[in-house]
């Protein structure tokens, strides 16, 4: 039986590594920092006290920030649903020339760095914007930017389900005498509810923890909890209050996630889904043509204008146009390293973050997809937490926790590690469904044909999930390029990433700095768009959950 023992022991060791590596990564870089935040909020001034929390309750500015965080998230979510629903319908139900291009294009805003979106709206709705209105430091600039940002979430999530709903159900309702609106309200809408709930909770979470957009567009007038954590830490050095805010935010986020998963469990109506290809058809008649092209026109204008204005402003030289701002990126100013260096930093960090996220994420995904035990289910939840936890909390946590056992706080590797933490849930979510879709039968067929477990993984699983890994890698790269919340805490002053450099430039007076910020934003947008286009090339159908 010795021949039996060695592969068994090998696979046991492999399984332990599969659990231990992702678990210790998450433990040290996520659980420990978050626990430290909790500690600092309760023990910050020596002994145990709730003084940091009562400080929040007694300070009107902090109370206002919490209230604003909640209501702007609700408003942003509702507004996004209403504005994006027609496009979800059009993308789900009609086929038209260039559809896959349009679908890829509307995803670009979602993956754009918050700093770029903030900068674009500063250019569009700021004092010298082409519309001639100044919405800076109003709620409208923030809400519009949030809708812009999350438009694709609704179109892809709701439209994704809509594209698979059997149109015959709607036809049946029509034959039973329901008008278009009644049919939508009584048949389509209830069937779409799971997707609407999913999209709403994603949009709510993103806007609830909005940082870059609010920081740039809200000025001193509006701030979310996220912005307050950053401000309390960097401007007022009040770590206990920042910690207490982070704890409150975590509690809020967790309750949303719990409520959502309860809702998902309670109502999962079994539906007969149909392949999208059978559902979509060419528009017929003038009404449908007007609808399809009207919606596409609006979408193009709404999503395209800010980005076009951003590019336009980057090329502004006095009253004319030129590449002066781009040329000047290489020159160092009195206080900053040359902005162009940020491009190299970002590319380096993004590559490292991609590697870390791919290794840890693939190990975790393997564990979740193949070993269905209580441990792996808990692990699934644990892995999703960094997604719910705000980036600022992660950065703040690194700052307060990672000085022991060795001081990592100034180590350059910290930046890609933070980015990987944010990216890992995406890698896992992309890989797990594909891994699960590799039918058990195929693995069994491999085993019966004489392949030992490791060989089965290499010969059958790996080729089938390889594309999903590429997609996950692309996501990780794009996320790292644009990450701002965590980076703003831990990037060293002499090694800024692109978003940090853009934010610094935006904070400086003078038209030249502003134009340079626009130029860097344009470059960052271009890099992000390239990685997303690469992902789209490798994506098979609607693979993955994002």
């Amino acid at each position: 039986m010795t021949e039996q023992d060695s592969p068994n022991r090998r696979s046991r060791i492999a399984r332990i590594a599969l659990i231990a590596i992702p678990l210790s990564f998450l433990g040290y870089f996520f659980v420990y920092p978050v626990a430290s935040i909790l500690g600092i909020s309760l023990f910050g001034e020596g002994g145990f006290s709730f003084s940091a929390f009562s400080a929040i309750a007694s300070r009107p500015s902090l109370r206002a920030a919490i209230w604003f965080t909640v209501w702007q998230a609700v408003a942003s979510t509702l507004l996004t649903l209403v504005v994006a629903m027609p496009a979800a319908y059009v993308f789900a139900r009609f086929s038209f020339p260039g559809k896959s291009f349009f679908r890829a294009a509307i995803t670009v805003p979602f993956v754009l760095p918050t700093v770029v979106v903030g900068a674009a709206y500063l250019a569009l709705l700021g004092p010298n914007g082409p519309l001639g209105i100044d919405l800076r430091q109003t709620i409208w600039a923030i809400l519009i930017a949030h809708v812009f940002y999350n438009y694709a979430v609704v179109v892809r999530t709701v439209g994704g389900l809509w594209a698979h709903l059997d149109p015959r159900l709607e036809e049946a309702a029509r034959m039973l005498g329901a008008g278009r609106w009644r049919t939508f309200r009584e048949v389509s809408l209830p069937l779409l509810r799971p997707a609407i709930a999913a999209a709403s909770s994603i949009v709510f979470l993103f806007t609830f923890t909005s940082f870059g957009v609010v920081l740039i567009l809200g000025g001193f007038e509006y701030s979310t909890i996220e912005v307050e954590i950053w401000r309390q830490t960097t401007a007022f050095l009040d770590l206990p209050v920042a910690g207490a805010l982070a704890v409150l935010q975590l509690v809020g986020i967790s309750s949303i996630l719990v409520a959502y998963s309860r809702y998902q469990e309670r109502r999962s109506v079994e539906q007969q889904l149909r392949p999208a290809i059978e559902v979509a058809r060419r528009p017929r008649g003038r009404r449908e043509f007007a609808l399809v092209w009207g919606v596409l026109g609006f979408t193009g204008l709404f999503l395209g204008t800010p980005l076009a204005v951003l590019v336009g402003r980057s090329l502004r030289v006095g009253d004319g146009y030129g590449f002066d701002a781009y040329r000047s990126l290489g020159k160092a100013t009195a206080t900053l390293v040359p902005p162009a260096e940020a491009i190299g930093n970002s590319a380096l960090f993004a590559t490292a973050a991609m590697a870390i996220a791919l290794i840890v994420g693939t190990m975790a995904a393997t564990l979740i997809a193949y070993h269905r035990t209580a441990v792996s289910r808990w692990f699934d939840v644990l892995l999703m937490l960094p997604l719910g936890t705000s980036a600022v909390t992660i950065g703040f946590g690194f700052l307060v926790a990672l000085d022991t056992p060795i001081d990592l706080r100034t180590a350059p590797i910290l930046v890609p590690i933070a980015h990987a933490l944010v990216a890992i849930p995406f890698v896992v979510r992309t890989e797990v469904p594909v891994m699960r879709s590799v039918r058990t039968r195929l693995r069994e067929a491999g085993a019966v044909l004489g392949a030992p477990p490791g060989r089965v993984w290499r010969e059958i699983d790996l080729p089938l999930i390889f594309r999903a890994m590429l997609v996950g890698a692309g996501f990780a790269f794009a996320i790292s390029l644009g990450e701002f919340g965590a980076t703003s805490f831990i990037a060293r002053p002499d090694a800024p990433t692109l978003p940090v450099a853009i934010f610094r430039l935006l904070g400086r007076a003078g038209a030249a700095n502003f134009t340079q910020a626009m130029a860097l934003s344009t470059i960052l947008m271009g890099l992000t768009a390239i990685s997303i286009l690469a992902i789209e090339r490798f994506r098979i159908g609607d693979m993955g959950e994002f």
Partner: protein
Amino acid sequence: MLEATNLTVRFGEKIALDAVSLTVTDGEVLAVLGPSGSGKTTLLRVIAGLQAPGSGSLSWDGQPLDQVAAHERGFGLMFQDYALFPHRTVAGNVAFGLRMAGMAGDRIEERVAVVLDWVGLPGYQDRSVGNLSGGEQQRVALARALAPAPRMLMLDEPVGSLDRGMRERLVGELRQLFVEHGITTLYVTHDQEEAFGLADRIVIMKDGSVAQEGTPEQVWRQPVGEWVARFLGFDNIIDATITEGVAQTSFGRFGIAGPASGSHRLVIRPDGFTVAAGGTIQGTVVTRSFRGGHYQLAVEAGPGVLLEMEIDEHPVPAVGEVVTLSIDPEAVVVLD
């Protein structure tokens, strides 16, 4: 030779296999026949090593298999849904087991060509499996299972998802293939015609245990109980009192073979009836349908007694006609 002894598998409260024992001798085609949910597939998975039995043991030529992993058992398994590797070509699928066995590249190519020839797909090497028809996929799956020359081939409802004509043709081809190459085969199906047409021996399963075992002929001639009789499609099951080779029923008397006496349940096989003037049974034809080679009649022989029969001689009585029937004693099976 495969020997399975008292294999038992539980899924929670449900018993999937209940002390199943069977043997497959070298070169034999054994069919495991049973309705869905009777534990056939579980039995196959336990033998393949894909499912551990709760208790019981397995051996091959006297060597225990219990500690041998699926990939080391050297059995071939053809899955019900084929489980072809979507990322490999036809040749890539068929060659898989050969590569696992460490065969050299050029010999693999030869063997793939030979096996594809066997299953009637010569020249299909470079096709992608996604573009094959159901029957072609079935043949590739068969070729893949056959290629490494497994010491036993197991097939799980291999023709279940094909249409009727294709199914009948393939069952004939499979039988020929197994016999020609002397392949020891364990064949799982819910279709008795398939099992009768293919197997040297049949094991009938019911609710996780073996209900009957024997050659197709034995099973067909002498089903052991009412359940097996009904499962084989024999619906004429009646109560009778037997004295000295004559059965007395509510609708008349007729002779039977064998020494039984006393109260029994009987099965009259549908082919055992003849319309004849000197018959002992009378009844009214209720339905009549043409089935190709014969007619299927339902005759009401008494209140609530409906006899199903196959009649192939002419003239065939019409619906409503009163007929006199005689029963072949050899077609009457005494149950219990």
